[in-house]
């Protein structure tokens, strides 16, 4: 054992398994040297406040995480439109039935193509507003695809939960009669799209 080596009992002292009082007299001095050594241990907390800001700034400059986002080919949704019995006074009807025709794996990042249809022969303009476009009544106009008043829009939306409604003539908010509907909290109903 080199002359620098602490006695095994003093090492136990350093480990905290015994106290100075447990050491025999001839090891007392060495024990006190060991205690002085440990007195130099700096346990003061270290604060690094700047780290948070720098880390988040570094992360923000990263491109979208492509390692685990796999954008699938958009899945085509085949729709069957069933004309509802028209109530002449309202003149608005649609049935929107979604069939997810392909069994592709669903991940958070997959996208689905959805065709929205509204039968509204009396309308001058129809648009679509929902969670996917900030409920902007002007952002997504439907196109009148038939003289019988069939209005259509096709969107590619991310998989997830969406709510929407049609806006007729810029003022009338109408849920999709063929879609599941929930209370909007304002006395009306929103249509639900779960992709």
């Amino acid at each position, binding site marked *: 054992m080199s002359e620098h080596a602490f006695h095994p009992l003093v090492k136990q002292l350093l480990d905290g398994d015994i106290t100075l009082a447990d050491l025999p007299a001839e090891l007392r001095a060495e024990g006190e040297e060991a205690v002085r*050594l440990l007195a*130099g241990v700096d346990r003061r907390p270290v604060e690094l406040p700047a780290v948070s800001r720098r880390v988040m700034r570094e992360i923000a400059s990263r491109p979208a995480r492509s390692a685990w986002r796999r954008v699938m080919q958009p899945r085509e949704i085949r729709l069957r439109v069933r004309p509802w019995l028209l109530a002449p006074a309202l003149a608005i009807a649609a049935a929107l039935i979604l069939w997810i025709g392909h069994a592709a794996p669903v991940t958070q990042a997959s996208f689905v193509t959805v065709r929205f249809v509204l039968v509204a022969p009396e309308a001058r303009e129809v648009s679509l507003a929902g969670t996917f476009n900030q409920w902007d009544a002007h952002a997504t106009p439907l196109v009148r695809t038939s003289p019988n008043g069939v209005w259509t829009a096709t969107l590619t939306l991310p998989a997830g939960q969406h709510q929407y409604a049609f806006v007729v003539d810029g003022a009338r908010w109408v849920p999709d009669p063929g879609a599941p509907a929930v209370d909007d909290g304002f006395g009306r109903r929103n249509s639900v799209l779960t992709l």
Partner: protein
Amino acid sequence: MRSETGAADGDIVRAVLAGDHERYALLVERYRDRYARYAARMLGSPDAAEDAVQDAFVRAYDQLAQCKDPDKFVGWFFLILRNRCFAERRRSRTETSLEAADEVAATDRTEGGTETAERRRALQLALLELTPDQREVFVLKHVEGLSYGEIAERLSTSVPSLKMRMHRAYDKLREQLRDHT
């Protein structure tokens, strides 16, 4: 692991992986200072610690998909920080002693006792003369206050091998302190 602000580590990790990268800030905030001290004692200066902790968090973010158990983020993060500390280029003695001296000078202004400050400086310098493994077991036990069992679990090693490492460290520290004080 939970904190009083709510979300558990695993949930934050999962949310970040799902795209909510802003939430990562919660993890940084939560563990930044906890490991700052470990890094500072391992590397010998708060500046080096800041770089290491920052790098480790960024690296952890980049590799987050490889975190096998999101609920045990903290243990996984520690290993990344540890690797980063071990990879730190071995600093020259002069560099370190200047920095350590600066740190001590700051201490003198805030705390009484130049004797304590001197002891701290001497021990930190002596620690830097150990191998990283030896320094680490000393820091985890005596600075971070972990038991041998806890250290063994964290480093996936055995208590006897840790004790052997530590006892060798005690002897080297004694040698350094005797020769250089």
